């Protein structure tokens, strides 16, 4: 299988001597849903922001579709889309205008823009509400709008930070279904993050467990559960962290 993302020894220190992310290495294959999981402050967002070319690594590198996030940041940005944690959208815009605005940044021709937007319109399920200002949208509506915007351009890799956090059960389920469907039916690749380990089981093909800036283990959910003889990922996390502290 093709590697869409390869992360090599990626590190980041915000302050000297304190590593927020410490030599992370993993890869994401084409059509795969990979999730970084770990508690708040584990370093998931920092890792994701480096891959999204928003901040520069202190050391190490990562390659999206073969392009270095350090040396070819603009090529990386054309290959990815990124949905930040707790992101909003321009409140004074109508939902539909937001989609056109964002599509305009990715697409080269107006036909392409139209295609992207109509895809997003179908996917977000907001219907007529797209003609309203984002001002009046609920959290769940905004997340659906942003998710559809993140996948409408069929990026090589869609990066979603805490995609379902802060949403109610129904909205979270909708989002998870959409992600799963896009991966299965269209072969899209996802890099997700979540601090909710139970929820992420249902959506990810493979996970990487992070704690205090370190990537402890990676593997498929089933593989990890049987390796640590755990009932769910939370138990896996507990055992991984405990064995790390004993070592």
């Amino acid at each position, binding site marked *: 299988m093709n590697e869409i993302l390869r992360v090599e020894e990626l590190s980041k220190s915000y302050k000297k001597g304190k590593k927020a992310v410490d030599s992370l290495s993993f890869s994401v294959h084409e059509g795969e849903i990979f999730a970084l999981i770990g508690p708040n402050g584990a370093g998931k967002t920092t890792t994701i922001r480096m891959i999204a070319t928003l901040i520069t690594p202190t050391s190490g590198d990562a390659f999206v579709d073969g392009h270095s996030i350090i040396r070819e940041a603009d090529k990386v940005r054309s290959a990815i889309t990124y949905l930040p944690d707790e*992101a909003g959208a321009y409140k004074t815009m109508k939902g539909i205008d937001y989609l056109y605005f964002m599509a305009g*940044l990715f697409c080269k021709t107006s036909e392409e823009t139209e295609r992207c937007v109509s895809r997003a319109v179908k996917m977000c399920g907001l219907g007529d509400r797209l003609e309203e200002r984002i001002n009046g949208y609920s959290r769940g509506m905004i997340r659906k709008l942003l998710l559809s915007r993140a996948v409408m351009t069929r990026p090589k890799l869609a990066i979603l930070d805490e995609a379902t956090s802060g949403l109610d059960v129904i909205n979270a389920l909708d989002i998870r279904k959409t992600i799963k469907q896009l991966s299965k039916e269209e072969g899209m690749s996802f890099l997700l993050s979540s601090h909710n380990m139970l929820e992420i089981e249902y959506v990810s093909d493979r996970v990487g467990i992070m704690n205090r800036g370190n990537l402890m283990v990676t593997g498929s959910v089933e593989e990890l559960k049987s390796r640590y003889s755990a009932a769910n990922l939370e138990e896996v996390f507990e055992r991984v962290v405990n064995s790390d502290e004993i070592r």
Partner: protein
Amino acid sequence: MKFGNILKKELRELLTVQTILSMLVVFFVYAFMGKAMGGAINDAVTSGESMTVINLDGSDFTARMLDSLPDYGFTPQISELESENYFTEMERLGTESMIVIPAGFGESAQKGGGAEVEVYTLMNKGGFGSALTGSHAFSGVYAIESYVSDSFQNDVLGLSEEEKAYLSEPVVTAEYVCANGRTENISAESLMSVMMSQSILAPAAVFFLLMMAAQMLMTAISTEKIDKTLETLLSAPVSRLTVLCAKMTAALAVALLNAGFMIGGMMIYMSSMMSSAMSDISASGEAGEAITAAEAAASLGLTLTAGETAVYGLMIFLSIAIGLAISLILGAMATDIKSVQTLLTPVMMLTMVPFLVTVLTDINALPTAFRVILYLIPFTHTYTAMTNLVFGNTGLVWAGVAYQLLFFAVCMYLAVKVFTSDLLFTMSFSVNSPKKKSKSTRNKGLQTEDREQ
């Protein structure tokens, strides 16, 4: 094309109902302030000709005087008192000031000694209006004085018309103002009303422009950061410089639009001030003044020439650009809406302190140390530019322009530095430094919340 898209989006964000409204408010405040002040003065001048007069003196002399006052340019509205409480009486009569002629007035006036009238002014709403009408009760008093003086000169002294004319104006004052090596036949007082609008109103306009521009851009950029739309935008295939340029261009365009409104309002203000200043002069009929205050100011070089106006405009433009660049950097540091207000404070101090100093004192007369500190603030040069240009301190003005250009270059360099590096996402300032991130319980109850932050 992407630049155009982003520029459009930025403009849309900046031109909210709120910003447009505040522009209109400023415009109308300036325009109406001129109209209202000009109007108040005109009103006072004209309404001074008619005022409530209470006659408590039964003498024939006073009765004759009240009949003749219209010949002296004053029409008394004779009323009766119903009680001794002048406050309630004035409220009842609906007047803000009145002249009371006490008993015994006629007798004293004819004897030629110590005739007294009383002027009452009602202060129940405070402010300008009552003070103005109060002072204009004196045009009534002036008419009474003239009548008494005339009748004394006629009836008691038996003076001729020439002698009376002489007594009415025994000495004629011709006033001159010298400036910029020239002299004009005008009183300093009437020139001041023209000068004041230059030396106070123009800096005030610049001050408001700066504050509004800074506030607007800072709110916009911090909202983008807090909503994380900035992260989303910068992860898209657009260069950060494009985004920065679009933001700066949009903010400048909106600030200039705002400036347009303000200049429009000020022009209306100035023209109404001018016309009322002129009617003031003609009403008081000061001796020897052959030209209007505006003409005198121009001929004395106390107004800006076209070239000087252009330099002044450039300085205003540079000041706004500097203010915007600083706001861009500071706004990028905001982590919540509350911190925006705090971040605005340094910009506010930098704009307000030199503004107040300029308006209240003459910077060039301050001790050197203060002067240097004030001139290190780039906005100071714009505030003082009007005065410096008018009085020919062109060297100081050009130095100011050069300094502002340099300052702007440094600010833009820093803004580019912030925008093209990690700083945009790592630099932060928040009012309550320990980050409070309360995340509500998720759909699947249990969660490990090991707080590292």
